[in-house]
C-alpha cells in the first residue's frame, strides 16, 4: 500500500508567512491527485513537503503506513519531475536515468535492463548517449519522466511538468502522462495552475487558494457542485458567470424564485440558452462582443444594457449582431447560489 495521507499539514516560513494553513488530504493507492490553484496558493510548497524538500511546520505526512515528517527525501521512495526538468547537464541521458539506481547500489545488469525499458516506453532510445543539452524540450521532459519511472517509486510527484512546453506538445504529453500513470498504477501528485490539465488528469482534484483546500473531489463533482465561489470561478473555461445579487435585484435579471437575502448567483456559460420565453432565470442582454471558436461560439452581453458582463455559450456559428438585445434563460438545477459573506454554497 502506498497511499499518501496529510493531516493538518502547515508550512510557516521564518518571518511568519504561513504558506500552507492546515491541509488534510487522503490520496488512495494508485490514485492520480492534482493540486490546482493560482500562483502563491501553496500547492508547490505542499508538494515539496511531501517530497521532503521543505520541512513540515505542523501536522503529519505519511506515505504508506509510515510517517515521513523527519525522513530524508532519498528515503521516502518517491520520484519527482521538475518544471525545468532538472536533468544533470554533465551526464548522458542514460546516466541521468541510471543515477538514482546507482546511488542505491542496484546491480549493473538490472540498471541496464530498467533504463532500456524506460527508454523504450518513453521513446528516448535513440538519445541514450546524448547530453540533455542536445535534446528538445519535449525530449528532455521524457528523460525526466524516465528518470522517475526507472526507480519504481511508491509515489510520483509532478511540479508543473508541462508548463515549459508549447501548447501542442503539452496536450500530447498530458495524454501520455495519464496513460503512463494508468499503466504503472503508481500513486501520483501533480501540481499545475492550468485548470484544463487538472480536469483531464485528475482522479482526485484539489483546488487550493491562500494556503487552504477549497474543495477536493472528483473533477466532475467540482464542476457540477462547486462548494465555494472560488472553485466556481476557477473551474471551467470560459469561467462561470458570477453575479452579486442585492435584495432589490438587478435590472434585466428575473428569477422565478428569488432568494431571501443578498447572494452571489452563478451560472455557467454552457447552461444558458437563447430563448424568447422566460425561464427560472432570465437575463436580458445587449450583445457587446461575439467569438466564434468553431464548433461553438461565445456571446458577451451587458446585463440590462449596461450591467455586468455575461458570457453565453451557443452551439454553431449563428451569431447575433453586436448591439442586438436578446434573452438568455437557464434551468433551475443549473443555478448556483453562494453566500456573499462566507463564499460558501447555499443550495
Amino acid at each position: 500500500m502506498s497511499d499518501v495521507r496529510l493531516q493538518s499539514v502547515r508550512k510557516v516560513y521564518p518571518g511568519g508567512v504561513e504558506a500552507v494553513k492546515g491541509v488534510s488530504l487522503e490520496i488512495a493507492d494508485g490514485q492520480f491527485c492534482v493540486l490546482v490553484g493560482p500562483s502563491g496558493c501553496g500547492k508547490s510548497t505542499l508538494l515539496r513537503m511531501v517530497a521532503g524538500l521543505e520541512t513540515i511546520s505542523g501536522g503529519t505526512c505519511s506515505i504508506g503506513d509510515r510517517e515521513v515528517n523527519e525522513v530524508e527525501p532519498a528515503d521516502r521512495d518517491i520520484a519527482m519531475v521538475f518544471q525545468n526538468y532538472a536533468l544533470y547537464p554533465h551526464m548522458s541521458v542514460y546516466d541521468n536515468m541510471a543515477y538514482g539506481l546507482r546511488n542505491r547500489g542496484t546491480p549493473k545488469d538490472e540498471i541496464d535492463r530498467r533504463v532500456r525499458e524506460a527508454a523504450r516506453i518513453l521513446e528516448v532510445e535513440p538519445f541514450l548517449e546524448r547530453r540533455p543539452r542536445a535534446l528538445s524540450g519535449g525530449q528532455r521532459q521524457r528523460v525526466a519522466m524516465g528518470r522517475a519511472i526507472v526507480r519504481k517509486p511508491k509515489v510520483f510527484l509532478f511540479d508543473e511538468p508541462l508548463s515549459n512546453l508549447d501548447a501542442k506538445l503539452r496536450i500530447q504529453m498530458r495524454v501520455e502522462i495519464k496513460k503512463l500513470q494508468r499503466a504503472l498504477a503508481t500513486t501520483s501528485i501533480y501540481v499545475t495552475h492550468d485548470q484544463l490539465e487538472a480536469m483531464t488528469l485528475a482522479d482526485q482534484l484539489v483546488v487550493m487558494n491562500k494556503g487552504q483546500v477549497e474543495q477536493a473531489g472528483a473533477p466532475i463533482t467540482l464542476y457540477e457542485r462547486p462548494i465555494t465561489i472560488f472553485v466556481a470561478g476557477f473551474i471551467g473555461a470560459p469561467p462561470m458567470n458570477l453575479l452579486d445579487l442585492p435584495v432589490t435585484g438587478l435590472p434585466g435579471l428575473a428569477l422565478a424564485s428569488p432568494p431571501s437575502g443578498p447572494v452571489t448567483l452563478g451560472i455557467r456559460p454552457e447552461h444558458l440558452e437563447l430563448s424568447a420565453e422566460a425561464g427560472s432565470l432570465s437575463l436580458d442582454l445587449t450583445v457587446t462582443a461575439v467569438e466564434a471558436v468553431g464548433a461553438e461560439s461565445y456571446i458577451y452581453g451587458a446585463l440590462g444594457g449596461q450591467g455586468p458582463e455575461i458570457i453565453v455559450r451557443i452551439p454553431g456559428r449563428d451569431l447575433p449582431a453586436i448591439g442586438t438585445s436578446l434573452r438568455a434563460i437557464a434551468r433551475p438545477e443549473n443555478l448556483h447560489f453562494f453566500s456573499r459573506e462566507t463564499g460558501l454554497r447555499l443550495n
Partner: protein
Amino acid sequence: MEKRVVFNGKLLPYLLLAPQLLITLVFFYWPAGQAVLQSFLVQDAFGLSTEFVWFENYQVLFSKPEYYKSMLTTAIFSSLVAFFSLSIALLLAVQADRHIKFASGYKTLLIWPYAVAPAVAGVLWLFMFQPSLGIVSQSMRVAGFEWNPLLRQDHAMMLVVMAATWKQISYNFLFFLAGLQAIPKSVIEAAAIDGARPARRFWTIIFPLLSPTTFFLLVVNIVYVFFDTFGIIDAATQGGPAKGTETMVYKVYSDGRSGGDLGGSAAQSVVLMVIVIALTAIQFRYVERKVQY
C-alpha cells in the same frame, strides 16, 4: 533585417581599440621585448659597456644547479599554494552557500584579505610567526614545538605558503560562491531525491558542474603564484634561509637587482614567461576538454 548598427568608417574601430592596445603595447609587450633583448646582452657592473652575446646568458643559467633548485622550489610552492587556496576556498564557499546565519557578514569578512597588499600580508605573517616575538611561535613553543622559519627551510616554506594561500582564498572563494549559486537548485534537489547523500552529491553533481570555475581559477592561481607572490616572499623570508624559499620570480629580482646581473636576470624572466605561457596553453588544451560547460 539588419538589427546591428553598422559603422562604415575604417578608422573608428581602430580608434576605439587604441587605448587598450596602447596600454597593452606599452606596459606588456614593450617590457617583454626589452627583457628578451636584454637576455642576449652582457653588461659590466657599471653599465659602461654592453656586449651582444646571443645565448650565453641562457647557457650560464642552465649550467647552474641553483637555478634548478629554484625551479623545484617554485614547483613545490606553487602546487601547495594552488592546492590549498583552491580547496580551502571551495570548502568555505560550500559552507557559505548553505543557509547559515549572518551569511552576508561572513562573506564580507572572507573577502577582506584580498584587499591586503602582498607585502603587508607577508609582514603580518612574519610578525605572527617571528621565532622570538611572534604570537603564534610563542604559543607553539609553549606547546612544545620549536618553530623557527629564520633557520629552518621547511618552516620558512610553510610560512610563505600560508601567507600566499591566505591571501588568495578570498578571490577563489568569491568565484566559487558565484559558481555554486549558478547551479540550479532543482538539480541538487533531484539528486537528493535520487538518493545521493551530501558527499556523493558534491562529487557527482556539484563538483563537475563547478569545473569551469575551477579551471579558470587554476589558471589564475598558477599565474598568481608565479608572479604576484613576490611581495610576500620579499617581506617574509627574502628567499631565505639559504635560498630555501627562493622562487624563480624572486631569483629574477635578487640576481638582477642585488646581484647586478641584468642579462642573466632577463634570461630568467624569459624562461619564466615561456613556462607560464606553456602551462596556460597546456591547461587550455587538455584540461578544458574535460570541463563541463
